């Protein structure tokens, strides 16, 4: 039962990764691509971490996975902001 649930979570995470990657390749400009990449991948990583935590059935491992997810959330949100701001500045300068 737990194995089944964790598999579902991991598969759902992979789906969001796939969606984010397709978005990165197919969307027309930098802002929408950033949106697809950071939003979808953050959710994908969250589901993946939840699935792996469930799979490990270990509190300390689960907490580590949670910590990794939070760190990636903060880093990707900040880098997306920085890239978008830089692109915006270059646009207004032109």
């Amino acid at each position, binding site marked *: 039962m737990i194995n089944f649930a964790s598999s579902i979570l991991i598969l759902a995470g992979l789906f969001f990764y796939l969606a984010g990657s397709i978005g990165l390749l197919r969307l027309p400009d930098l802002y929408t691509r950033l949106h697809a990449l950071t939003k979808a991948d953050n959710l994908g990583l969250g589901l993946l971490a939840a699935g792996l935590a469930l799979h490990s059935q270990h509190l300390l491992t689960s907490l580590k996975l949670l910590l990794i997810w939070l*760190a990636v959330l*903060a*880093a990707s*949100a*900040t880098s997306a*902001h*920085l890239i978008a*701001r830089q692109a915006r500045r270059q646009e207004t300068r032109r």
Partner: protein
Amino acid sequence: MNTTSLLVFDGLLLFSIVGLAWASLATTDERRSVILFMAFGLVLAVAWGRLLAPDVALAEAAIGAGLSGALLLAAARKQPRLLSPGSSKGSRHPDGANVSLVSRWAVTLLSAALAGTLAWALLHAFSSTPHDMLPRAISGNLASSGVSNPVTAVLLNFRAYDTLLELAVLLTAVLGIFALGQGTPGYQPAGPIFDGLVRWLVPVLILTAGYLLWVGAHAPGGAFQAGATLAAAGVVLRLAGRSRIGLPDGFVLRIVMAAGVGVFLLVGLTLLLLGRPFLGYPPAWAGALILLIETAAMLSIAATLLLAFVGGQPQSADVNAAANRQREEMS
């Protein structure tokens, strides 16, 4: 997990490593090349993890992908973007045709010869001796090494001499960096969002470095990984435009730079005076001595990597503040 799916995963991993290396070398834009190189380092770290070498994986991720990437990006920033397409100075041919065909083939042949020699040496090493001899020797002596992580036991005890010389190489490198004179001026101060990240990321990095140093005695970790993490904290501070990036000034900085080699030599020579072999720790003291040497080594490694990122002697905080003020007036 069954063998087939692992085989598919390994195949994908190998394909990504070779593909990323190729892409990184083939691109004409330096920045793109560096970013591909960082991705290459991360995938390589995963490969080391698959080979059950988490120590190497950690070092590859921290130094190979992280800090080397930061160093290369900083170098690309200083370099005028000659090779990038669309730049006004596009006189040099984009795919490097200024390098003559003969020298390119010579480099290719030499690299192939080197790869062949290494592959032959590896095969030879695997076929000639029973290849579990070394691991057996290590696990047999692990109890007297003072640590329970075999990698740390080899690096800091059994082959401590090699690590001492590695630290001496780093000291030589940092002397070269110092000879370059003043480093490049810092970056402009970060906006509120990046600054908010820096505020909690830097303490976490410092804590992680301390953890890696401590855990190296019985699990993957150690001075090199900890030093790289500590240097990463300084790199983040510098990227955020802070005038102080954690490097001490003047004399203290010189002591920190030399601490790794200095403490190592001091321990070795003291043991020599006490009638033991050079760096032959008494088993009862080995754990404490290794931790002492690793702490000093971590500080030296972090200072070296950070000074490499600064690209010379760090400018004093006042100079950086003045530069920032000037920049603000200009904009």
